[in-house]
């Protein structure tokens, strides 16, 4: 098993339950991959996977089986807006002269704009988004908006804080319909979203502890070589491991650094090279008092500038609070060229300017830039127009004794539950040949 994120850990437990001997190698010095909790509970902050949908059957059952407690997270504070340098308080949005939207859309908040404009969706099943027929007619979100005569002011606002693309012109419309459908499917369960008590990373830690053999940390696979009826995994430290079969759960950017021999088929390698990953930069802070109240602010912010969105959530009623600056997509370019210290200073300076009353109280907890970590190369797979058909499918086509899993290979779910779903599929493919 290559990778000890959710997909690798879940696949390992499934294969062990079927009687396979499994060795798990993980390049990092910790398990969990894109689940990463900063700080010590209860003052901890999620830098990776955040919310567990009430429809995440595999995650919820796994937590239950391992005695890992799930709970609804405290409600985040509402957002005010900073648009082209001007503040619009939440309640003023519909009537503010600084609301740049045309009259008909004045009531729609920036964070709701995408759902309001991107419809009707052609998706019926949870996996229609990757149907080759629909993918063949897919367009970019920008093309769709232009065709529907959406005013440029609305388009400009939509370009900010993209979570599923770098720009509207490179974002698949189908992939956005998938996101919307995922939200409504979760809501259909009429139960609250969840998080792991003590931090989401506790779940992969418990999963790793439940395996028959410990996860081997700090072991990076750099090559997979298939010869006859064996696969050998070449590690960066020079060791070679020998296996009957391999499940590899790396995100596409990390797969690019693995040498396959024989090489993967051209279309599969192209898919691995071409699929892009969401840029997410986060700066985490702790704040002891609700300093924004005296200034009449709501606490959180949605900006069209360098700081992206700022999410504030209470740890307890009345404080302390966790503040996360969440910058996505092209806005990450401001800091991507800087080293960690300079990037943190860049964000810090602007945050203190935006929240002057909090300036003395903000205590930095860490900076995370997922796109700069070669072991994942971004937060999650994002899809360009047309990629959700053949490209998506090529990504996880088994090659002889090598099977592919991970969030980017899931059909019916995304994020954490997608990682788990993909593990079941890969294990089935493997079991068919080797059980």
């Amino acid at each position: 098993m290559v990778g000890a994120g959710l997909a690798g850990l879940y696949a390992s437990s499934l294969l062990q339950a079927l009687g396979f001997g499994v060795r798990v190698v993980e390049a990092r010095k910790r398990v969990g991959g894109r689940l990463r909790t900063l700080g010590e509970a209860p003052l901890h902050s999620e830098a990776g996977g955040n919310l567990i949908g009430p429809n995440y059957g595999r995650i919820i059952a796994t937590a239950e089986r391992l005695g890992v407690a799930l709970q609804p997270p405290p409600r985040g504070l509402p957002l005010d807006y900073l648009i082209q340098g001007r503040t619009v308080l939440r309640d003023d949005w519909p009537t503010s002269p600084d609301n740049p939207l045309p009259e008909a859309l004045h009531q729609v908040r920036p964070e709701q704009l995408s759902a309001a404009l991107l419809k009707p969706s052609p998706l019926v099943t949870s996996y229609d988004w990757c149907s080759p027929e629909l993918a063949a007619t897919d367009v970019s979100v920008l093309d769709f908006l232009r065709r529907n005569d959406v005013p440029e002011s609305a388009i400009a606002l939509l370009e900010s804080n993209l979570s599923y693309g770098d720009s509207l012109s490179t974002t698949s419309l189908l992939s956005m319909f998938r996101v919307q459908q995922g939200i409504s499917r979760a809501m259909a369960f009429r139960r609250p979203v969840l998080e792991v008590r003590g931090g989401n990373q506790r779940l992969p830690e418990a999963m790793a502890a439940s395996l028959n053999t410990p996860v081997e940390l700090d072991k990076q696979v750099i090559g997979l070589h298939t010869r006859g009826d064996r696969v050998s995994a070449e590690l960066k430290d020079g060791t070679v491991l020998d296996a009957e079969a391999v499940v590899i759960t790396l995100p596409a950017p990390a797969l690019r650094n693995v040498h396959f021999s024989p090489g993967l088929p051209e279309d599969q390698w192209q898919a691995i090279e071409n699929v892009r990953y969401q840029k997410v930069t986060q700066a985490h802070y702790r704040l002891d008092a609700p300093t924004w109240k005296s200034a009449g602010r709501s606490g959180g912010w949605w900006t069209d500038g360098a700081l992206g969105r700022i999410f504030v959530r209470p740890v307890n009623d009345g404080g302390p609070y966790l503040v996360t600056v969440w910058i996505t997509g092209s806005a990450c370019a401001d800091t991507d060229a800087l080293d960690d210290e300079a990037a943190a200073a860049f964000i810090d300076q602007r945050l203190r300017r935006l929240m002057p009353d909090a300036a003395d109280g903000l205590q930095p907890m860490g900076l995370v830039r997922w796109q700069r970590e070669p072991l994942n190369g971004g937060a999650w797979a994002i899809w360009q127009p047309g990629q959700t058909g053949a490209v998506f499918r090529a990504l996880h086509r088994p090659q002889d004794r090598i099977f592919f899993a991970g969030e980017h290979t899931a059909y019916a779910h995304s994020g954490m539950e997608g990682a788990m779903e993909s593990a079941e599929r890969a294990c089935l493919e493997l079991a068919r040949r080797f059980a």
Partner: protein
Amino acid sequence: MSASRTVILTLAWLLVSNPCAVRADTPLDGETLFRLACQACHALGPETPHRIGPPLTNIADKPAGTATDYPYSAALKQSGLVWNRPTLVAWITGAERLVPGTLMAHHNTLQAPEALRLAEYLTRSAPRP
């Protein structure tokens, strides 16, 4: 209801499009298929707690949507389906097309003979994974 017609259509489609997809390797038994494709969301034992989906204990000949205290979708409750081998195969291979609006978000990964084997396993008396 139109559900039974869809079942027939789905089965016909499966036979046409997936004639002998399973390789010459040892076929996986119903229990293994259940473990790999359903167990996370469904209990199947003597004690029948709800997971995210309802328990599938003794499902044969039961009308859909009738496990006690499970908050089914209106779509499944009103589907008129009764669980037997053909309806289960149709459900396993395309639940969301068979009953649009169902809460079971499920992309089938089983090949036609596997779906049938799983349906046989589920309709056998008291299977226990």
